[in-house]
Each structure stands twice: as structure tokens, then as C-alpha cells.
């Protein structure tokens, strides 16, 4: 499947991902989901292409942010569909990528 769209987290959102909900503070997972992720993901599903998400250049991905964005997207749409239409890029840190993929595949599991 061809990649036709992308999100560079540090440029398009922030280099300091924050809390779970918007009410918790700036740069939340919920804000990321509403502002960018849901729309771009839905467009990728409709257009049958892949969305590339570049994870590099940020200070970290707190678990609350990850579950409030990628975890929520997975709960709402199913892991298979999410992974079919989203590809991640993380040259700096493979553990971060593994954690996000783990969250998508099993958003309800709490094992690290």
C-alpha cells in the first residue's frame, strides 16, 4: 500500500507530547487525536493508502499520551485497521516504536 500522507510529530504537533486529555494540560494525546490523527487516518482508510507518522525529534512519548491517542484510535477502529493504514518511522529509538505498536495491538493490556 502506498504512503500518500504523513505526520511529523515534532513539526506538525509538538516536540513535547503531554498528558492524556486536553483538560490535563497542553499537547495532550486527545488533542493530537482530534487535531491530526483521526482525520488523517480516516482519509487514509477512505483513500486506501498509508499514513506515515514520523516519531523522531521529540522529548518522549509518555504512556498517557500514547494511550490517549494511538490507544484510543485502536479501541475505536480496531488494531488491524490501524496498522494497515499507519506506518511509523523512528530512527532514533526502536523501544519507543515497539511501545506504540504494543499499545495499538493491545490497548487494554497493562504489561510493559
Amino acid at each position, binding site marked *: 500500500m502506498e504512503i500518500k500522507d504523513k505526520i511529523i510529530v515534532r513539526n506538525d504537533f509538538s516536540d513535547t507530547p503531554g498528558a492524556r486529555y486536553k483538560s490535563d494540560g497542553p499537547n495532550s494525546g486527545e488533542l493530537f487525536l482530534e487535531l491530526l490523527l483521526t482525520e488523517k487516518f480516516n482519509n487514509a482508510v477512505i483513500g486506501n493508502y498509508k499514513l506515515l507518522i514520523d516519531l523522531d525529534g521529540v522529548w*518522549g512519548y509518555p504512556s*498517557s499520551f500514547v494511550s490517549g491517542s494511538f490507544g484510543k484510535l485502536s479501541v475505536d477502529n480496531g488494531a488491524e485497521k490501524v496498522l494497515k493504514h499507519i506506518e511509523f518511522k523512528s530512527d532514533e529509538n526502536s523501544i519507543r516504536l515497539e511501545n506504540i505498536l504494543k499499545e495499538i495491538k493491545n490497548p487494554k493490556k497493562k504489561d510493559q
Partner: protein
Amino acid sequence: MSKKEKNKKYHKIRSVYQAKRRTKKWKERKRKALLQKKQGFVAKQKYMTKPYTNHKAPEDMSFIDNTDEVLEYFNDAKKLFKDKEKVEFDIKDISNLTPDTITLMIAKLKDVSYTRKGEFKGEAPKEPKLRKLFMESGFYNFVATSRQNKEKTKNLLHKEADYKVRPNIAKQACLFGMKHALGRTAPFEPLYEILVECMQNTNNHASANDEEKLKWWMFVYNCEDTNTSKYSFLDLGVGIFESIIVKNYITKFAKKLGAVPNTHFVQDLLNGNIQSRIDKDNEIRGKGIPQIVAHSSFDEFAKFQIITNDVKIDLKNKTHVKLKNSLSGTFYYWEIKNVA
């Protein structure tokens, strides 16, 4: 309504009010109010002239190492405030003081539910090294003091009153410690993620009745002697084991097993097994503490402890102890050092 009718209505309302003022009940109420006002004034005058109660600190004022004694000291001071005493925090002669204690002290003194708006005073320790630590901590930026005390602040002491999570403050705290201890400015993700999760947890552990947002305190102290950065993070909420989520979990067990100490639930807490059944998105929550636990194993973290209610957890040694005294809130402490 004509002017005459308006006038008539006004006089009617006025006469009803005047009649009320002549009743026995009204006069009695006014008399009592005046008496109370006088008594309040007298009590205030009495309080103003009252001497301070000297509250001598234990010699070892290290919260992280001498936890029970330091907690007892602050819990006793709370009782003094409750008894309407003016408190002198006497730390002049202490022989040990660590940055974590300064965090606890300032957070307590700025908490109205702790001081009950009572007066307090104190002086910096006499011992030169401890005095330097105290003066440079930024403590004096948060209390009323003479101008000269406010001058030297070399560390990062932050009080948050608005948001739970402040990503920019987390980044600033990372940079502040990393430059000193790790000698770099490139992101060290575990440190940033731990800071955000500590902030995020301040809200998670509030009691159900606590509508107001919790304040948290963070202190980053760069120690020149050991080349480490010491992080203290404190929220004065109800503490993890007194939070509604954990309390419900414990109650469920208590029904089967009888009273069980909080220490019994430490492993479940660290593994993220304790979760709410009523919170929004409860199924995907509860990964914050497991993330902190996982990150604490990095070699860069020289020490990592959590103190909450009557439990002290050492994440590096994977041990925990029951405390004699209790902290109402949650305290995280860690040190970072260069391992390269």
C-alpha cells in the same frame, strides 16, 4: 406602574423591613453577631501577641533517608497549627538536610489546609553547607522574607497551580538536570516521560470529592559534590493508597481477607493492576506507574523512591517498607548520574 404606585410599593417593603428589625429574634441575632465579631477581634489580638512555639527539627532532616522522623516532625507541626499555635520551625542546629526535605517543607508551608492560615517562622541552618543548600534552593522565593534572602537561586523549584501536566516545565527540568549530570542536551526520553507521568498521576490520585485541581511541586537540585541531579516531585493529594480507585480495590480484598496493610498492594500498584471501573476510558488507563517502574531500571537513575501514605517504595532495589507515620500525598524522588 405610576410614580404613586411605585412609591406606595416602596413604603410597603420598607415598613415590612422595619417591623422585622423590631422583632426579638432579629435583635437577638444582631446581638450575637456583634458579640462574635468582638470575640473574633479579641482572639485575633491574643493570637498576634502570642509567642511562637519552638518546634525543634530532628538532626537528620533527610526525608528520603530518615523518612519516619521527618514525617513525624511535619505531622506534629500540623497538630500545632490545628491547636492555633504559631510555629517556629527550628532547623538551625540540624546536621543533615537534603533537597527532598526542602520540597516537602515548602509544599507544606504553602498549603493552607496544613497551616490553617497560622503564622510560622524559621531560620536557615547554621552549618555552612546546609545553609548554602537552603539559601540557594529557591525556598525564599515562596515565603515572605527580607530581600537579601531572595537573591541566590541556583536550582529549579516549581509550583504548579493550574494545569496537571506541563510538558514545557518537564522539558525545562530535563535540560536543567541533564546538562549538569549527563553533560548533554539531547532528549533522555525516560526522564521526560517519568516527569509527565508524575504530573499526570497527581490528578488520578485525587479523591472523588476533591473538585479542585491539585498543586504539585518539583525541585531539581544539581549537586556539585556528587555530580548528580536530584529530582523531587510532590503532590499533596490524598496519596495513592487513599485515592478512591485504590481504596475501592483494597476494600474489595478486605471483604475477603479482613484488614490488609497497604504494603500488601504495592506489587499490584507497580504492575498497573489497580484500575478504576468507573473512570472514562478505564480500560486503556493505568499504564503511568508501570512506565515509571520500567524506566527507573535505567542505569542513569542512581536512586528512585516513592513515598505515599504509609508506604515507602524503593524502585531500584525493588523493596518497600511500612512507615510509622503517613504522608498525605505522593512523593517521587530520583537521582540521575552519568554512566558513560
